[in-house]
């Protein structure tokens, strides 16, 4: 196997930098801490998975970075700038495909090119030529060649999720946020998409933050795994995944892989036990 160079070390700055961030919901009496004071640094080109029980604040972190949620305390930096003012290109895939029902698959995937600079500047001129080819190539890549004219409801859930991945990647994002995008798929589709995802990452090397509750998925895809614990949500473990890339699904049956997922599992179970005695 041709081992890729170790995680690239970029001299200047982190792609994601959470500085003592806290998120609470509700007012004084019914206040719920979704995320206790948390710091997290992710450098360029890293593939980081966040795992943990539900309600541990995984998605909260993702939303902070995506800019759809603001922190109660602390600072969220993306590409060295505070969220909101940044110029980093973000791609995001959600647990649901969230395709726009009035657009066909091609136009859905093309959406980021219409919104995100610099692509949007030339959208009118290139939508029928260069951008269209780009979308078709991207669809072919995930096995959706020829489905551009279909509407989302004409596709199965797995196919919609593939299209959603295409949309997240079409504008070459430097930061890719994945919120359990493979969660609702069957085992085989999921493994197929893992492979596609890994190849895309090796090729383009975006920084990826993946939220998942599937440990196998985290260990297969990520180069670093952060384990989180609920109530209050916080990061309790941060470990590097050493396996060489490209990884195949066979890797997941090797002793090292199994013992890693085993160890993560124990961490989460222990975290849950603490949580239960606390509450």
């Amino acid at each position, binding site marked *: 196997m041709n081992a890729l160079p170790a995680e690239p070390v970029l001299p200047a700055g982190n792609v994601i930098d959470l500085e003592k961030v806290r998120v609470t919901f509700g007012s004084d009496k019914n206040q719920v801490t979704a995320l206790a004071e948390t710091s997290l640094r992710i450098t360029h080109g890293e593939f980081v998975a966040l795992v943990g029980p539900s309600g541990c604040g995984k998605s909260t972190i993702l939303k902070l970075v*995506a*800019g*759809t949620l603001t922190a109660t305390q602390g600072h969220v930096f993306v590409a060295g700038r505070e969220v909101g003012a940044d110029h980093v290109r*973000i*791609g*995001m895939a*959600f647990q*649901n495909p*969230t395709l*726009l*029902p*009035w*657009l*066909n698959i091609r136009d859905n995937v093309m*959406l*980021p090119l*219409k*919104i*995100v600079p610099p692509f949007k500047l030339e959208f009118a001129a290139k939508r029928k030529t260069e951008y269209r080819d780009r979308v078709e190539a991207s669809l072919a890549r995930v096995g959706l060649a020829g489905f551009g*004219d279909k*509407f989302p*409801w*004409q596709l199965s859930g797995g196919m919609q999720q593939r299209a959603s991945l295409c949309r997240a990647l079409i*504008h070459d994002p430097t930061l890719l*946020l994945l919120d359990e995008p493979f969660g609702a798929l069957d085992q085989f589709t999921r493994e197929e998409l893992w492979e596609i995802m890994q190849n895309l990452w090796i090729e383009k090397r975006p920084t990826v933050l993946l939220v998942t509750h599937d440990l196998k998925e985290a260990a297969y895809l990520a180069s670093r795994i952060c384990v989180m614990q609920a109530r209050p949500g916080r990061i309790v473990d941060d470990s590097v995944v050493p396996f060489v890339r490209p990884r195949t699904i066979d890797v997941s049956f090797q002793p090292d892989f199994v013992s890693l997922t085993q160890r993560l599992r124990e961490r989460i179970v222990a975290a849950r036990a603490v949580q239960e005695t606390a509450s």
Partner: protein
Amino acid sequence: MNEQLRRRILSTTCIIGFFVAWELLCLAFHVSDIVLPRPSEILVTLWTRFPAIWPHALQTLYTTLVGFALGIVIGILLGMLIGSSRLAYDVAYPMLVGFSSIPKVAVVPIFVLWFGAGTVPAVLTAMIMCIFPIVVNVATGLAATEPELQDVMKTLRATKLEILWNVGLPRTMPYFFASLKVAATLAFVGTVISETVASNRGIGNLMMIASSSFDVPLVFAGLFILAALGVALYVVFSLIESRVTGWAVRSDNFAAGG
């Protein structure tokens, strides 16, 4: 297709049956045509007096369409404002509900006072009749936009205007067209009310004059014209609707055509 054809034949038969029954009942009970003219009499009146009727019909159609168009523009703008701003919602909604509860007949004299009798009050009455359903539906459609779809746009750092244009408005289209079908028929009601009260042209005026001279078949001819215009406008907007918002209906036709 066969099933569809059968449905069509059945519904057409029932509609024709309604008029046949009307005709037969009038004949059987010797109903005077001053009370309720037979459909055949009405059609004859329509045919023989068409040259006298059609300028009025045109006037009513023209007035209604202008009022309707104004209503659509103002309705969409107000609906967008109310649907996207909390303050606008709190302020405008109670006012709108109050305003739409006022009988429009009571408003016509005010318009006449301001603009004189004739076309302008009729246009305005048609307009205010159709604004309310459009505003309510556009506002509802915007409010019903799934937050997930908005999040997709927000992560792309889309501006508010881009979100409105790419997600809010398309999402609202089914609601908007549903309201147009109601508003189209209401616009006719508005026009005719105004024509009846203060105008010397239009179907409303024609019916007023006809009923004051006990020309009941002509009154009914006017009603027939109004019904036909209303149905025509409804059909036009249904056709546009199925073109534009087929994604919300998911019919087989749309899949083939889209």
